[in-house]
């Protein structure tokens, strides 16, 4: 049977068709992911909590709002790199960054933060002032900071917040809380205790005092504007970017984990990794298994006996405990994990192929090839292998999900490669931090579903291959 015939036979069945379609989709998404993420994404971004600090923690995906009866605040990131207006003041100028936001949710944000990146100045340190203009025509100054002055021996230009941006969590900042309490007293005549404001600062930012409310504060929907004013004294002074984050309680397509990491990104990153694990492990395993099986069956004698004894023993080893042991002792590197998987998985095919080749060896086909003077290797390669190729191919497809599942299991036990986040590791993280027991379904269900979809794709292909491998089924269908 030629490759094209095999493919046609595969497409003739429903599982075969479904498997091919799903595989094409998965490969397409993998290519997108491979382009989108650098290889060291896991080490440099995923494992760096600072990168995710502006996301809400343990937030379900944003689309839960589509469910009836749920209306939760999404996360808004307001960013600017050029000032909205510039006005001269004294011997310098004040640059204002105005970032408006419409607030109309029934719940306060989970946190409000400000980030300022890369400030450069030449003579006097600039002053940063943060204020919030509110829908009732009032404005509250929340926070003020003078950028750190020149250090001893430092020469202009002075660069600040370049490696790590200045990040202020406004709802935790004590000066902002004190300012807010003062503002409430001056504007509304409400004498709220500072602790009250501290405890519900998020509500205070987007609300007004109300003595009838048990909290003392009610949310006030409308147009808010975050203002950052920066006073510069030199025309060359600059500020790269400013960002205000109003974090809600839902986030993105897939939600976030306990560190605020975007799960959608990790899930996408995990796809090509899973495919690479499955495909590379299965290709290597079947190559070794098939080669040894054909040699063992055709060569016979002592070679056969050695290979078969060896295969017998390796095939009878309990896989997972030994995988755990080796990965634990030698180290959890993804390549090593694949290597161990291969080392314990090849014998099944070897034993199967040997028995098939044994039957074929005495057949007329091989006899005539031998009579024509074909070499042993040529006979194995040209006359035996094509006959067993469909089996080998089917086994190759069948083994891919097994490899993916084995890696996921190891990751789940905490033995995954720490520099490469896989689906199993996301789940492990969720299980270990108690996400399961807190009911964080968006964290634990999607990785499992993706593992199943990927594995089922290969299973469908294997099911579709069955009529190719087992002609009896072709008769039945």
């Amino acid at each position, binding site marked *: 049977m030629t490759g094209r015939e095999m493919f046609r036979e595969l497409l003739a069945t429903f*599982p075969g068709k479904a498997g091919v379609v799903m595989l094409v989709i998965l490969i397409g998404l993998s290519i997108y992911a491979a382009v989108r993420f650098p290889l060291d994404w896991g080490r440099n971004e995923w494992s760096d909590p600072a990168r995710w600090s502006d996301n809400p923690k343990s937030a379900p995906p944003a689309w839960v709002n589509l469910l009836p009866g749920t209306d939760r605040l999404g996360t808004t990131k307001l960013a600017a790199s050029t000032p909205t207006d510039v006005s001269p003041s004294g011997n310098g100028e004040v640059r204002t960054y105005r970032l408006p936001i419409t607030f109309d949710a029934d719940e306060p944000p989970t946190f409000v933060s400000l980030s300022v990146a890369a400030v450069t100045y030449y003579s006097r340190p600039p002053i940063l002032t943060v204020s919030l203009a509110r829908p009732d025509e009032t404005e509250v100054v929340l926070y003020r900071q003078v950028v750190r002055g020149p250090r001893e021996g430092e020469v202009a230009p002075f660069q600040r917040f370049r490696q790590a941006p200045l990040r202020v969590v406004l709802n935790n900042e004590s000066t902002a809380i004190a300012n807010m309490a003062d503002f409430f007293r001056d504007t509304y005549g409400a004498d709220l205790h500072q602790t009250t404001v501290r405890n519900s600062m998020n509500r205070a930012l987007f609300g007004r005092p109300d003595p009838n409310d048990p909290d003392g504060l009610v949310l006030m929907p409308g147009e808010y504007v975050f203002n950052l004013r920066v006073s510069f004294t030199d025309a060359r002074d600059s500020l790269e970017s400013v960002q205000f984050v109003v974090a809600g309680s839902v986030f993105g397509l897939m939600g976030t984990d306990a560190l605020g990491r975007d799960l959608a990104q990790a899930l996408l990153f995990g796809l090509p990794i899973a495919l690479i694990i499955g495909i590379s492990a299965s290709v290597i395993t079947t190559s070794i298994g098939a080669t040894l099986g054909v040699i063992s069956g055709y060569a016979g004698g002592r070679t056969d006996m050695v290979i078969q*004894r060896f295969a*017998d*023993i*390796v095939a*009878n*080893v*309990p*896989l*997972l*405990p*030994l995988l*755990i*042991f*080796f990965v*634990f*002792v*030698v180290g959890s590197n993804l390549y090593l994990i694949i290597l161990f998987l291969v080392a314990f998985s090849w014998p099944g095919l070897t034993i199967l192929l040997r028995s098939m080749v044994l039957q074929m060896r005495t057949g007329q086909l091989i006899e005539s090839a031998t009579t024509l003077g074909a070499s042993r290797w040529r006979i194995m390669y040209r006359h035996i292998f094509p006959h067993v190729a469909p089996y080998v191919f089917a086994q190759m497809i069948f083994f891919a*999900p097994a490899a993916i*599942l084995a890696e*996921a*299991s190891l990751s*789940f*036990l*905490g*033995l995954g490669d720490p520099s490469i986040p896989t689906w*199993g590791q996301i*789940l492990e993280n969720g*299980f*270990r931090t108690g996400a*399961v*027991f807190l*009911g964080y*379904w968006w964290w*634990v*269900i999607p*990785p*499992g579903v993706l*593992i*199943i979809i*990927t*594995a*089922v794709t*290969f*299973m*469908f292909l*294997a*099911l579709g291959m069955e009529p190719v491998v087992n002609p*009896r089924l072709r008769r*039945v*269908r």
Partner: protein
Amino acid sequence: MSFARPLALRAITLIGVLLVVLLLLVVTLGATGFSDRLLEATIGEEVRGLRTSLSQSRTFGGNVEALDEAVEVRRAELVEFYDLDQHWARRLPKTVLRVLTLDLGEARNLKSFSGSRRVSDIVLDRLPNTALLLTTSLVITAIIGLIAGVRLSTRIGSKIDRIVSYFSAVSFATPAWWLGILMILIFAFKFGLLPSGGMYSTPPPEGGFLRFLDLLKHAILPVLTLVLVSIGPYIYSVRTMTMNVAQEDHVAMARAKGMPEGIVTRRHILRVAAPPIVTGLILGLAGSLGGSILVETIFNWQGMGRLYFEAVSGGAPDEGVIVALTFVFTLLYVAARFILEVLYIVLDPRVRYT
């Protein structure tokens, strides 16, 4: 007709497996420097114990130098006793013996149920729990798989057959631990029907029967999870094997003779298909063992699988426990294999004549 020869052959292979695993363990431990660390930990433990007891004794009262000297002498003795001063390869036979007898010193963090810190106590304490979970789910899987698979083989290509094919694909593709998490989310948290983990309620109920019922209640979810992930492929393999036999000429002959369908199925199909069905069970064994490790972890079932999780996690992993676990799991696997092999030899007369 003799059982002895094939049985001995199987036993030799399985003992070979055990030896090879043992050798792999020990060589890996030695080559990576793990065995040195293990021994050092053992010696350190003993020396520390000696120091405490000596410092309390009157002889050394206050004489720190003499105490240090005595401890140092003891340490040197121990190093010699354990051959720590020699290359790991020379220590190989001794290490093999130590693993074989589970003489792996004391665990760092873990304790057995009775509070002992000896690795062998910790691991052996958990063995019955693992065996209980594994056997129960294996027996249930085998019975359901057999009945369903044989039924299906008479209606190949029907709608139900196709549904089961897809189910078995999904069942094979589902990670046991993920299904376990799902079970906890649904049955324990959403509906609050069953406990989410552990083996007994706290405090455990008094009385043998109540205690047993409590155990049963805690076992439902783990067993269900294990059965669900392993049953699909098993039904499918029984169905395919039975179908292959059902298409043989001798079955057509039996039907042509006018035999009742029940007898045809039992005597002419099942009897012939029995050995490969047992083979299917043998092949699924390793998977079930792996599955049980993960399911125990999820459901906090106090077996050896959960122990793996506990030994791997945490700041200081318990190496000795992991070595012991790997060996005992291999032992358990080999024992289960042997039982099934005996069954196979009983079922397949051809093996006895060769």
